[in-house]
């Protein structure tokens, strides 16, 4: 009988399509974490002394947290303790290309299979890609074209070599290593990531994107992304992620820092499809990520859009610190949990400047035994006169074994602030499915239509090229579940 529950189950049981492993020779550090490993990572990258020192300070801070047993446990997720000494902190393909043409054919094929061509042409002609494979960036396209406009788009490692002052000025300025347990760990061991600088008054003419791929086993991925939009600049950036299917869990602990100066806009979109584990909940990525943007300048704007369908556990709160007067923060999120996936995600909007505005639209979809938590904070500081926030958190349940939870935190120290909060929970009912099927739609199409309808306010925020992908992905991730 096609009840929502067992349709969800069928959907859920579809296979993860990106679960293959690339046969490429990689240099992998032995498992374990200590100062020596950090020195080796830093040396591998030929880093300046100040950066090594920064890493070591972060490591010592993190080690102290470990000693104090201060690994965060407040999120609404459960997992066995992580053995940080069993993880490898660096893995990189042995052959390193000097230019795009030299990219290892196996790696090139990998990205092709993932739908990310590393050629500067054709299908994604309007998108520049930085491809991060395990711990390193293996290719960045359209660098030349962007450079003509003064836009820097390169791997983090290269930025450290070529633009050390910029990196030094902004690294850790939004997410200091003392921010939280996983940010500290990332600061100690991060190996690569993307770096973007858009100069004054420049509107970046193409989407910039980073595609993260975990390939090596028993390896964590710790990347760092830093985006700076100078006065009046505009940039739209997108990241995608996938990983092979493995029975053990793998840790991905990234940090993303955004800085928007006067009148600058940064639009940051994520389509996260890390391996979610199998239907029994074996394996999958632990996605423990710190993302934060600072609207430093007046009239600046940072907009986060995320479609989170993968990972065994997702723990992330892309946030905005609204410092500049009239600055705007936005958070649009779709999070799907299926099988035994768990997500605890949301945002923080910290209003400091006058007339700052923020919008939060969160859509949680739970199927199978999935657990989906929205956790969001809106904080209005004294002096943020005229600040406004609108929050909307909707949950959609498919089946009766899953759960949805909402934890909004509101802190207001400014009497002129205006806040609005709305929340709904709904279910796809057997009646709805029957009605759709009576009109000739298959149950899966019906589910996918209802889910996409549920998420449309978020999906329409995605860049055109990716909105269609995201819609398909939603369909796939709920295939065999209720749509």
């Amino acid at each position, binding site marked *: 009988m096609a009840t929502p529950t067992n349709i969800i189950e069928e959907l859920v049981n579809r296979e993860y399509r990106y679960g293959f492993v690339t046969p490429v020779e990689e240099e992998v550090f032995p498992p374990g974490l200590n100062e020596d490993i950090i020195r080796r990572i830093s040396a591998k990258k030929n880093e300046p002394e100040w950066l090594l020192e920064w890493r070591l300070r972060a490591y010592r801070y993190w080690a102290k947290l470990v000693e104090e047993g201060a690994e965060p446990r407040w999120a609404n997720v459960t997992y066995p303790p992580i053995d940080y000494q069993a993880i490898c902190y660096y893995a990189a393909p042995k052959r390193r290309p000097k230019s795009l043409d030299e990219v290892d054919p196996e790696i090139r094929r990998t990205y092709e299979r993932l739908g990310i061509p590393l050629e500067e042409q054709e299908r994604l002609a309007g998108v520049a890609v930085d491809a991060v494979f395990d711990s390193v960036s293996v290719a960045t396209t359209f660098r030349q074209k962007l450079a003509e406009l003064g836009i820097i788009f390169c791997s983090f490692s290269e930025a450290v070599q070529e633009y050390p002052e910029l990196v030094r000025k902004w690294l850790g300025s939004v997410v200091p290593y003392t921010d939280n347990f996983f940010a500290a760990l990332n600061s100690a061991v991060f190996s690569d990531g993307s770096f973007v600088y858009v100069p004054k008054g420049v509107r970046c003419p193409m989407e910039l994107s980073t595609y993260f791929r975990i390939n090596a086993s028993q390896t964590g991925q710790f990347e760092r992304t830093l985006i700076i939009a100078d006065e009046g600049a505009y940039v739209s950036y997108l990241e995608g992620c996938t990983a092979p299917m493995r029975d053990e869990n793998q840790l991905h602990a990234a940090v993303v820092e955004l800085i928007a100066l006067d009148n600058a806009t940064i639009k940051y979109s994520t389509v996260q499809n890390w391996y979610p584990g199998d239907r029994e909940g074996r394996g999958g990525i632990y996605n423990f990520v710190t993302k934060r943007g600072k609207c430093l300048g007046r009239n600046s704007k940072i907009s986060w859009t995320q479609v989170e369908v993968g990972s065994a556990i997702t723990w992330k709160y892309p946030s905005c610190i609204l410092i500049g007067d009239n600055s705007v923060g936005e958070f649009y999120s779709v999070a799907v949990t299926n099988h035994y996936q768990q997500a605890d995600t949301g945002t923080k909007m910290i209003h400091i400047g006058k007339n700052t505005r923020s919008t939060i639209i969160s859509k949680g979809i739970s199927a199978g035994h999935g657990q989906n938590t929205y956790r969001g904070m809106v904080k209005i500081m004294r002096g943020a006169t005229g600040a406004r926030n609108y929050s909307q958190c909707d949950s959609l349940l498919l089946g009766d074994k899953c759960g949805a939870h909402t934890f909004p935190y509101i802190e207001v120290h400014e009497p002129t602030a205006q806040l609005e909060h709305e929340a709904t929970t709904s279910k796809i009912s057997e009646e709805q499915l029957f009605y759709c099927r*009576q*009109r000739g*739609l298959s149950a899966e199409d019906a589910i996918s239509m209802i889910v996409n309808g549920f998420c449309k306010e978020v999906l329409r925020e995605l860049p055109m090229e990716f909105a269609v992908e995201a819609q398909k992905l939603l369909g796939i991730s709920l295939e065999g579940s209720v749509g």
Partner: protein
Amino acid sequence: MNRRPLLEIRNLRVRINGQEILKGITLAVYPGEVHSIMGPNGSGKSTLAQVLAGREVYEIVEGEVLYDGEDLLPMSPEERARRGIFLAFQYPVEIPGVSNLYFLKAAVNTVRKQRGLPELDAMEFLALAREKAKLVELDESLLQRAVNDGFSGGEKKRNEIFQMTLLEPRLAILDETDSGLDIDALRVVAQGINALRHPDRAIVLITHYQRLLNYVTPDVVHVLYDGRIVKSGGKELALELEEKGYGWIAEEIIGSARS
């Protein structure tokens, strides 16, 4: 008549939650015919309609249903719909977030595909939808709104008829589509039904009132009583029921059971 019935139900018995609701229904509907099914509340009219449309919450205890000569019961609801069975729901279901237009375009295209017709693109479909909306006097703003979401009772019924005219079914089952309608709406619904009438199609009207039958003349009227068809007749039967209620039928049944 030597033609094959479009719908043939033989001794259909249906249970839900262990309780028998349909207790042996036998009925044949031929192409071109309009049948009306009347009966008191709870007699099983909607159950019959939903079983014919493929609702899976019911348990078929016994019996057989042939649609155009083929065994209907193993078919999924969507397959039945694609083959031309349409049910206008007594309580149309709300689907928030999905626009009526988008929903119906998908529905019309699955049916067209089944019939070997090319799919309609957004512009073509919009033109068709506007034309049909005019026919049933459906407010165009309802096209853009989510399916039945916040529609008034009458708007929902009108939307069902609108969908029917778009999908052009071979067998339309209308479950109390005339209930809760004002006089104008009733006339419009009747227009929609009459426009669908065709020698190849058949219509089953479930209704409590003979007023719809003033506009749509049925070939046969059946009385469903406690899960059985206890009486069939011409359109006069509807008038008689309206006049006398169902009590006399109950007495007839009891009488015949005694004799």
